[in-house]
């Protein structure tokens, strides 16, 4: 039986599932406990699992992430929330220099089973410091796994998989997706990191997307279908590990690939994918891989400007159509 739940509620359901199963799973962050999270993703968890396992912190991002790291070194499986992904910058040393490198630098002595959950992305008029899509920051750092689901079902499966994963995971929840809903299976749900989903199949072009860009890519594909262009849409779901097999397969089937990135252009994940396809499937290509991204600017806050800046279904359709002409 599949029930319809929101992406927002999926977060709490995944956490509850894992905290029920494993008493070493803890949740910390600003306002996560008594208030149930500023995005209301974690209500009821404190009541259910107690004020020690679900705990409010001071506004001390370095201490939050450092504490998660130290606790993971000493027997817990912490989930730490960084309220907005933009604030990852305030504890980036902890993430990029400490957490990511420690297992390698100690030649495997230290295991860090921890998850950093964070609200990522634009679309809610919060302006340049509360709207960034920063999956590429994490992808650029060896030693971090990077997950960014687009549906409630994927969110549960992948958050559960992230919590069970023995390696550190940065888990990007898209804040514009919180109110969206989707069907979710009953029972315990656990997915697998590193598997992309082919959410739509079509033989003409492949559109590769992530998180909030997935529904836009699907919407674009539906418009394109009306115009006689059939698109395969790949939801990457994870950037690390990256499911290059699914990508390369879709690429060889259509010969035309478009990436849709919410991040500003330079060094986005689409660049990496473009370069992989270039190196490994060059002769399958009928045309260059085309990147559709947010312009390389900070995000403006006014609704009119924000909407015109982030890739939209219309822009995707427009670029795909013009390329095919």
């Amino acid at each position: 039986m599949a029930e319809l739940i929101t992406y927002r509620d999926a977060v709490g359901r995944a956490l509850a599932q894992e905290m029920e199963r494993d008493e070493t799973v803890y949740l910390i962050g600003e306002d996560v406990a008594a208030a149930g999270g500023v995005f209301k993703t974690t209500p009821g968890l404190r009541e259910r699992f107690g004020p020690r396992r679900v705990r409010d912190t001071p506004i001390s991002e370095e201490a939050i992430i450092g504490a998660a790291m130290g606790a993971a070194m000493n027997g817990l499986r912490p989930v730490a929330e960084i309220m907005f992904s933009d604030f990852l910058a305030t504890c980036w040393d902890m993430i990029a220099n400490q957490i990511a490198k420690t297992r390698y630098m100690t030649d495997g002595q230290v295991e860090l089973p921890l998850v950093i959950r964070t609200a990522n992305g634009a679309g809610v008029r919060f302006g340049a410091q509360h709207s960034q899509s920063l999956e590429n920051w994490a992808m650029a750092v060896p030693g971090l796994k990077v997950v960014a689901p687009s549906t409630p079902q994927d969110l549960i499966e992948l958050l559960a998989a992230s919590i069970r994963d023995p390696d550190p995971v940065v888990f990007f929840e898209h804040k514009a997706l919180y109110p969206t809903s989707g069907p979710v299976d009953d029972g315990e749900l656990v997915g697998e990191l590193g598997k992309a989903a082919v959410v739509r199949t079509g033989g003409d072009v492949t559109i590769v997307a992530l998180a909030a860009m997935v529904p836009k890519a699907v919407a674009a594909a539906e418009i394109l279908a009306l115009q006689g262009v059939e698109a395969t849409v790949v939801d990457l779901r994870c950037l690390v590990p990256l499911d290059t097999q699914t990508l390369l397969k879709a690429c060889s089937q259509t010969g035309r690939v478009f990436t849709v990135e919410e991040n500003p252009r330079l060094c986005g994940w689409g660049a990496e994918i473009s370069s992989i396809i270039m190196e490994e499937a060059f002769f399958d290509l009928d045309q260059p891989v085309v990147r559709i991204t947010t312009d390389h600017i900070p995000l403006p806050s006014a609704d009119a400007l924000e909407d015109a800046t982030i890739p939209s279904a219309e822009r995707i359709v427009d670029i795909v159509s013009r390329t095919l002409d």
Partner: protein
Amino acid sequence: MPASANGHPRNGGAAEAGSPDRQHGAADLARRIHIYRMMVEARLFEETAYRMFLGGLVKGTAHLAIGQEAIASAFAAAMKPDDLTFCTYRGHIHTLLRGAPPSRLLAELFGRDSGICGGKGGSMHLTDTSAGAMGCYAIVGAHLPIAVGAAWAAAERGTGQTAVCFFGDGATNIGAFHEALNMAAVWSLPVVFVCENNQYMEYTPIRSVTAVENPAADRAGAYGLDAILVDGNDADQMFDTARSAIEKARQGEGPSLIEAATYRHGGHSRADPGDYRPVDEVASWKARDPIPTYRERLLSEGASAEQLDDVEATAEEVINAAVEEARAAPAPPASVIGTNLWADGGSAWRN
């Protein structure tokens, strides 16, 4: 005394006052009425912003300072025109009271072309450098080191400016607070740090996550500074405190750290009802609302009811006019998306 863009004098009240101890003379009363005017205008601005948020005109979010007006008003009165204000996302009124035009502030909240930042900033990022309002900063703690830098430049250039940096109680637990306070003290910079302790972070009481009772004052000693704990709802006490800290800065005697106890009447942001707070706590603070309290005091100390009524009526006109103006402004055209990333006016990353 400079006129602000909407014609109301704001900064510089301090320059008139005779002595650091408040005198109950005529000049003093005028200054206090000026502070009252600012508080009233600030309150009206925030109430308006809230109404506009509920009405869907303010997009995204908005953090109101209703209940905290005495701090912003007293400081605005004590600052010289070229002094510099740094504040948080809860910064509408700090920006307004330094002299930014209310219509352009509202327009920014509405995401309009005439917004003070052209629609690129939004409620959390109001800046009017021409008024010395050097920005609202939306990442907790970040602006403390930045204010230190502005003060450093002031000291090196000998401008006589003071940088005043407002932040919340929650900001006292972030690393940037510590680094900024230490550097300001070591370099003896003209910066005044003002912790507006409204008792809460977003929904979490500050005392539940802080190792000391007074999050700023109890840490002043860690930077060799005096502990200054004041009633942030008492405009006169705030003004005296502001004036002496600014004076100290201007004399080259270094930074101050002020903790002003206050309370926000509403929730943290947007439509948060703030109901995580005990009802009687809210009630007792509302009973100490800085505005009616000050009105009564002024009345008992020489102001006439007419004068104050007039102040209120004028404030209402100002804000209403601003609303009309902002509402009438068009959305920014898409063509501005690519402007003003670089000093050349554009945003090209390649040739």
